[in-house]
């Protein structure tokens, strides 16, 4: 299921969600070898950060809640990883974040020079008091950060959005106008909180956390549906995608690529190959193609709009 994405040829339309596994080159490669067309690195931030204390990631059975807290070695402390990645034979999406437009620009420029195939701006992470969230819920600030970063990088720019935005279509449009080459949606939903009634306190050390996995899939599908109607750049759709049928669903909502994160909990690292197989079987059984079903849930839109991605 070889797929072209912004000029790069991907072995499959599946993307590894940022923050899931992608902590070193070896694991990114393993994920790729298991059927992920585009592995995404864990979000890289402006300064070293430990993230929150545990518990940080809890399975809820039908999804997870997490407040890892954007741990990062800091963009300047990753020479070894970049060196390893240099000889890679697979594409890499570098996710980055910052606490201000300046920080985003500084990190992006530095990271871009290290040769990732794409740069993804995490303007949507809800897990830190100081970082990220402010951009993704507001169209002006989303435009500001995207357009500023766009000037300093020469690889395609992906803007990763939060479902907390009151009008995610408008945010996506602002990102497109700012120069984003693709939209990635969604980051975790909520935030939520799980209180342990015996301990009488929130389970997560950070108290609140983002929701992911099957329980947020309807939100992800709605967001991709909205974004598809308001931009003409391609969308990486993710949030609860666990099976080939889920992939078909979010592609029909308008996704060009499909991200997978939490499903690794439920089906292991081989989840990528499993989804690819289910997806191609479905397409074969229905005598159709990815291009044909993309945006199929929007019969009112021009075929041109659907095929453009």
């Amino acid at each position, binding site marked *: 299921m070889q797929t072209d994405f912004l000029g790069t040829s991907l072995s499959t339309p599946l993307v590894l969600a940022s923050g*899931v596994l992608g902590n*070193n080159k070896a694991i990114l*490669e393993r994920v790729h070898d298991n059927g992920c067309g585009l592995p995404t690195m864990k979000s890289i931030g402006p300064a070293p950060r430990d993230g929150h204390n545990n518990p940080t990631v809890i399975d809820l059975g039908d999804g997870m809640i997490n407040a890892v807290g954007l741990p990062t070695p*800091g963009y300047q402390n990753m020479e070894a990883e970049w060196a390893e990645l240099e000889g890679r034979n697979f594409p890499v999406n570098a996710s980055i974040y910052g606490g201000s437009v300046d920080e985003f620009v500084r990190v992006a420029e530095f990271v871009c020079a290290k040769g990732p195939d794409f740069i993804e701006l995490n303007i949507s992470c809800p897990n830190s008091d100081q970082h990220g969230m402010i951009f993704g819920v507001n169209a002006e600030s989303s435009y500001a950060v995207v357009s500023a970063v766009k000037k300093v990088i020469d690889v395609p720019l992906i803007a990763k959005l939060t479902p907390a935005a009151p009008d995610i279509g408008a945010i996506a449009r602002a990102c497109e106008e700012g120069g984003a080459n693709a939209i990635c949606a969604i980051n975790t939903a909520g935030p939520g909180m799980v209180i342990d009634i015996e301990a009488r306190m929130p389970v997560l050390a950070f108290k609140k956390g983002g929701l992911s996995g099957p329980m947020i899939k309807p939100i992800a599908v709605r967001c991709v549906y909205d974004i598809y109607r308001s931009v003409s750049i391609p969308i990486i759709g993710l949030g609860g995608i666990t099976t080939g049928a889920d992939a078909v669903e979010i592609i029909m909502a308008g996704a060009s690529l499909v991200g997978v994160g939490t499903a690794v909990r439920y089906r292991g690292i081989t989840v990528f190959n499993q989804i690819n197989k289910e997806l191609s079987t479905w397409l074969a059984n229905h005598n159709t193609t990815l291009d044909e079903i993309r945006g199929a849930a929007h019969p009112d839109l021009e075929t041109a709009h659907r095929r453009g991605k």
Partner: protein
Amino acid sequence: MITDQKPVMVKVAAKQVHSPTFASLYIDFSIDFKPGQFIMVWIPGVDEKPYTISHHTPDRFAVTIEAKGRFSKKAVALEQGDTIGIRGPFGNGFTITPKTQIGIVAGGCGMAPLAPLVDRLEAEKNSEILFIHGARSRQFILYPDRFSTLRQICTDDGSQGHKGFVTDILEQEIRTRKEAGMPGLDLVYTCGPEIMMHRVFHICEENQIPCQVSLERYMRCGFGVCGACVCGKQVVCKDGPVFGSQTLRTMEDFNTTALLKSGQPVALDQYASWRCQ
């Protein structure tokens, strides 16, 4: 009962103090378990960390903790009746195949995951066990009266047994058996400081003995999603913590690199938090 999602709150049913810094916490709770698996232990308001199950019966289990940093000090200070949260068990556990000559090489509280394995091997009575256990000094020898199998003890200070390393004994045993034409070791299980396990692995490699080591890395989720614990391309919490010779041979980060909480890879000595000894 689902025990690997949000923490199940349990009470410390009993506590056994082994030494100034080691204690076992007993929990009256039925948990499905294979030797080598671990649970995440949550002390509300403090933190949550992985601990091997060191004792297991159908309705009781224990973890054995060395007071080292902030969390483990609080953990060994817990008393009977205190409430903690547990999630798990996680990880693969040791692969147990019927072998005749089995080596067990424990360093410090690397004894914890090996103890239920020895319990099991002793119960099954299929094998002869070469049991080597090293510790700082006499008082740090865990579970002195637990096993029927004789242990060959080493201490750093010579306060009991051989003064020196467990690997000295292992090498010597292998050599002696070979020279005497006795049957060699079929399999070695080891847990302890990574540098020790690495040495054990290499001794085994030189002598074509399959080996299983139990690794330790900083963990968050415990179930293979967050990536905090990756060691090369292995996910320690999920593919491990036990790894066999075949994997170890390709594992560049074994005994060289670990990720800090921030995700930064550093040399193991800088990481400093590996299996307590």
